[in-house]
């Protein structure tokens, strides 16, 4: 008997999880605002841009941002070497970055979760095979794989998504498997077994809902990772090819002009920093609210 009063909270794991996130803990307003704003920008980018991000205007090349000498509000963050408005390109770039992150997490997450559930529940050689494969993929540096693909198949949006998903699935699989192993021994699973429930039914009705916590945390934390890796790949020329404006590509384009027009490389990087920082903070908040035990993720 403990001296704590027990309070049965109603609702399944999802409701409980959401309650824990939004009601029981302090909501980080600014980062959450930035995350929401980034999603809105990604969706409505076409309406938010000041100029056509692809339009070339040699006459307006390399204009500085508004807060520097010679800048003006016409081009708040300046223009690049081809006279394209940097702010507009950053806005459109948001859509690219977030789409890649979303696609990657969806693909890698689904595959990883499925395989993790399988590995954890089945055990034995299935488990060993899946985990060894996962280790193999985790050991492989995605950057190099992307470079290989850039040469063999050619860089594109989907190449990047696949490369990232190939690493991401392994992370999901490992963590989900760990959760399943822990849950397998719990009473309610044993009870379901005793009652005659079949394997897949147990997995979907009993185990999966309780794995949701880990999934929610992982999803939010991997957005930042996906954005940074994609930007690095595009920077190296193995990611999304021009003329699509991407943050990584913009930094790369500005390299030659770092002395004269420093803003071309600086601004997109700041965008990355701001967005990833906010997503990571939100991810941390979700994780701490749901279960601080997950801090090893």
């Amino acid at each position, binding site marked *: 008997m403990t001296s704590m009063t027990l309070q049965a909270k109603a609702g399944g794991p999802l409701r409980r999880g959401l309650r824990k996130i939004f009601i029981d803990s302090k909501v980080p307003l600014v980062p959450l605002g930035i995350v929401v704003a980034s999603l809105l920008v990604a969706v409505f980018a076409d309406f938010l841009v000041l100029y056509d991000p692809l339009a070339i205007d040699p006459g307006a090349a390399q204009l500085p941002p508004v807060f520097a000498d010679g800048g003006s509000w016409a081009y708040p963050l300046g223009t690049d070497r081809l006279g394209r408005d940097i702010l507009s390109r950053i806005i459109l770039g948001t859509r690219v970055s977030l789409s890649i992150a979303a696609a990657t997490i969806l693909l890698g997450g689904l595959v990883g979760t499925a395989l993790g559930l399988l590995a954890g529940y089945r055990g034995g050689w299935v488990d060993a095979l899946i985990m060894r494969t996962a*280790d193999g993929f985790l050991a492989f*540096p995605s*950057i*190099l794989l992307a*470079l*290989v693909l850039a040469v063999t198949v050619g860089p594109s949006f989907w190449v990047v998504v696949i490369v990232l998903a190939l690493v991401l699935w392994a992370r999901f699989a490992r963590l989900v498997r760990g959760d399943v192993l822990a849950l397998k021994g719990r009473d309610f699973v044993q009870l379901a077994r005793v009652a005659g429930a079949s394997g897949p039914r147990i997995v979907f009705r009993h185990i999966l809902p309780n794995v949701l916590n880990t999934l929610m945390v992982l999803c939010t934390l991997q957005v930042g990772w996906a954005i940074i890796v994609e930007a690095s790949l595009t*920077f190296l020329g193995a990611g999304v090819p021009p003329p699509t404006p991407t943050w990584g590509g913009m*930094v790369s384009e500005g*390299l030659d002009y770092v002395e004269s027009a420093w803003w071309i490389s600086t601004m997109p990087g700041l965008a990355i920093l701001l967005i990833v920082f906010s997503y990571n903070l939100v991810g941390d908040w979700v994780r701490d609210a749901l279960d601080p035990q997950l801090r090893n993720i």
Partner: protein
Amino acid sequence: MTRLILSRLAQAILTLLMTSLIIFVLARSSGSPADLVLPSDSTPAERVAYIERMGLDKPVLQQYAIFLRDAVHGDFGVSIRTGAPATELVFSRIGRTLVLATAGLLVAVVISIPLGVMAAVHRGRGWDRFSMSFALLGQSTPAFWLSVMLILVFAVRLRWLPSSGTGSWQHFLLPSLVLGWSISAGVVRLLRSSMLEVLGAEFVKLARAKGLSERTVIWKHALRNALIPVVTFIGFMYGVIIASGVVIEVVFGWPGLGYLAYESTLWRDFPVLQLAVLVYTAIIVGINFFVDLAYGLIDPRVRS
């Protein structure tokens, strides 16, 4: 114990083989692997000769066997760009990459261990907030962009350091700092949570009850246990270290393996790229293997 080593070794070799298979398959999936390997000005006769020699008209598995046979003899093809054997190019660059990676790791360790320990010991207060903010910032900053910014400040504006190349410690400084910084974020967080867990352990309570000073309890008893997951993490992270290394080498013009890989991408110099990737994988697999062994040294429970 030897059985453990042997099994780990077998696993390592298996992983390496799998990687080579993946690259091999990818190369062939691009349509005409001959175009990848031969210079663009080769004659049709040379093309036919190559196809015959490599058995490109034979079943895939047989081709892979040929590839392995050549590999065992140290023949990984010839660079499209320079005509020199791929092995020559690649092996001349490994040293510099390893030097940079080690320096980065040292920087990371020197930064992260104190920060991680202080964050755990002063949980919820000043050091903790600082360390966590530092870690968060580190994880949110793209290494390539940070490199560009540092070059902008230190090389272009202040002219204190060179912006690229190799040759002196000044060339060495910025790349290793950036590499170290990008690794340390994850290490700080892991070490902090590991320390927190260890500090709550029974044996720590007992160590205090013995009358030991807090300093001894933290640095002798707690840290040694807390480092165990960190060591595996670092080994695990070597893939990330390598990946960051590639980008950093490119920005700083550090002529290592990563820069070579990048160049070969630009030049579509597939044989060199292929070997570079294989060597990278071998290094990662090798490091993981040694980390596994080191784990046994650090944690006596694993030895028996």
